[in-house]
């Protein structure tokens, strides 16, 4: 879908120094032209993807612009990212990190407590993430990943009036992250029982299985039988199957 604008992604990756992806730059430019200063940030990774982050209040306008003006009629998915670092620390990989640091003679890493936003940045804990694409015209397909911050009221405009398929995705986001979508026809539970409390995909929601039985990651750094040296040669593939 998206990867095809330059038709084959790999040659673009190998191209020397900072290849310019004109097709994707044009997509980012088109969103800026449609939405004006509601576009907070854009990013183009040549031959790969384009991201557009819009203001929260322009979330539905972004969908309308994508669908009605730019022709991205295909709705791929809508979801949320919770940028809060896990309050349980990195308990899951701490054992490995400590062991690796010990071998390297370094201090074990200290988990950060700050929000570390990814591509196109952001300011809030929750971020909307959606993808739409223009498909059906061979050779001219493109796709874009849209993002938006979500304010403290955890309320955003629903996409259902624009993309009917957003219905289930927003129900899932409401259930899993506790976001409210205004204009959604009925935010009901998608997967969980209707009396379920909490939002499982939020970072502070504990994964009980990991609480009961800690991360066995330390197994990963035990040397293979007859393999005392640090693994770096062509046999790198073997270790993965053990975990």
């Amino acid at each position, binding site marked *: 879908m998206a990867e095809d604008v330059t038709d084959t992604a790999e040659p673009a990756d190998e191209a020397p120094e900072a290849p310019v992806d004109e097709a994707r730059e044009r997509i980012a430019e088109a969103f800026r032209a449609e939405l004006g200063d509601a576009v907070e940030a854009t990013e183009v990774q040549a031959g790969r993807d384009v991201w557009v982050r819009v203001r929260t209040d322009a979330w539905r306008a972004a969908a309308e612009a994508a669908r009605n003006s730019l022709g991205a009629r295909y709705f791929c998915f809508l979801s949320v990212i919770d940028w809060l670092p896990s309050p349980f620390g990195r308990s899951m990989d701490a054992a490995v990190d400590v062991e690796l640091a010990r071998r390297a003679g370094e201090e074990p890493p200290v988990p950060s407590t700050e929000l570390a936003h990814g591509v196109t940045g952001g300011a809030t804990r929750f971020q909307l993430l959606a993808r739409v694409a223009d498909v*059906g015209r061979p050779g001219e397909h493109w796709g874009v990943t849209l993002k938006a911050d979500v304010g403290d009221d955890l309320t955003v405009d629903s996409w259902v009036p624009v993309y009917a398929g957003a219905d289930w995705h927003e129900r899932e986001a409401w259930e899993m992250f506790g976001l409210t979508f205004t204009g959604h026809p009925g935010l009901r539970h998608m997967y969980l029982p209707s009396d379920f409390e909490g939002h499982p995909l939020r970072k502070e929601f504990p994964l009980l*299985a990991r609480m009961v039985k800690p991360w066995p990651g330390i197994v990963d750094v035990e040397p293979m039988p007859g393999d005392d040296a640090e693994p770096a040669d062509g046999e790198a593939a073997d270790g993965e199957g053990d975990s």
Partner: protein
Amino acid sequence: MTAVTDRQKLQYIAARAADARVNVELETEGMTLNIGPQHPATHGTLRIVARLDGEQVIAAEPVAGYMHRGYEKLAEVRTYAQITTLVNRIDWLGSFANEVPFILAAERLMEVEAPPRATWIRTILFEMSRIANIILFLGDMGVQLGAITPVFFAFRDREYVLDQIERVTGGRFHPNFDRIGGLKDDLPKGWLADTAQVMEKVRTFCDEIEDLLMGSEVFQQRTRGIGIIPPDVALQYGLSGANARASGIDWDLRRDGCVGLAYPEVDWKVWTHPDGDSFARFWVRLQEVREATRIIDQLVEGVPSGPIMAKVPRIIKVPAGEAWVSTENPLGEMGYYVVSQGDLTPFRLKIRSASFNNISITPWLLRGVYVPDIVTILASLYFILGDIDR
């Protein structure tokens, strides 16, 4: 093209009036029909609550979640190598195909590229998963219409394909064979030659199914013109794969945006059908199985030699970044949005599975259809429960 004549308009109004009279005279009491969660037509545990007016559905609501396993949460505490085990179980009939987009996304973040031989074998196994998956659909569609024979043919011939997959990967259903940077193992001896024979058997199966089902008048009447999805609606709901192509949308991720797989190397065709009904969805999938055998035939001829694994560290820490990679899986577009913060585990993994979107259209699609058609429409949309609930 001429406009509708007045005479035609009057005829239409008269017909509607007659319908209305009949409806008044034969007024029925509404009832709620609960299909599932345990029902043969639901391939597992999808429940459909249909509000009926006589034989007609006035509202239908699928209830998912009976098999939710929370993979997106589990993935946050598992290493990348462990996650392939999880994602194997999303679409369990074409398991290998689930691993590929995830591995490709991780490889993109790590800036690793699998060697050509691994890419080719990946593509062969990918297409084999497609065949193993869709063969069952072709047989199952008959069962939903009361034809029992095709499903036995399907199970028999699927086994040949699964045997081939098992010989390479060691697993019939859950290969867990794809690795970041390549594959777990090389092909066994003689495998490529046997594959060509299996493909011949699959083509024979396609011919048999075509003879058994497609020519049948019952099959035609139960599928033609039933459950029509116009292209615009299909796109709005995010239908992908054969469901979209059966609505005339000329879009296949193997051709349009193929990343890290060998499809550009072979000569093949994307099949579409303009009708958008249940028959079209069946027809497109049948052609896709044939096309997949052609793709495999060409690929086994030219598998390059060389290593099957690129150099990757034993302990895989994926550099911080975000990547979206989707591939054309048997059920449609399957993609992973991987957010990494440089840890052993993904920070967030969004799994975009095809059936979730494909089934979200059912409230729209089932409105107004007759009760027996619910089953055929659901069968023709073709979903795997694990692919909805994840």
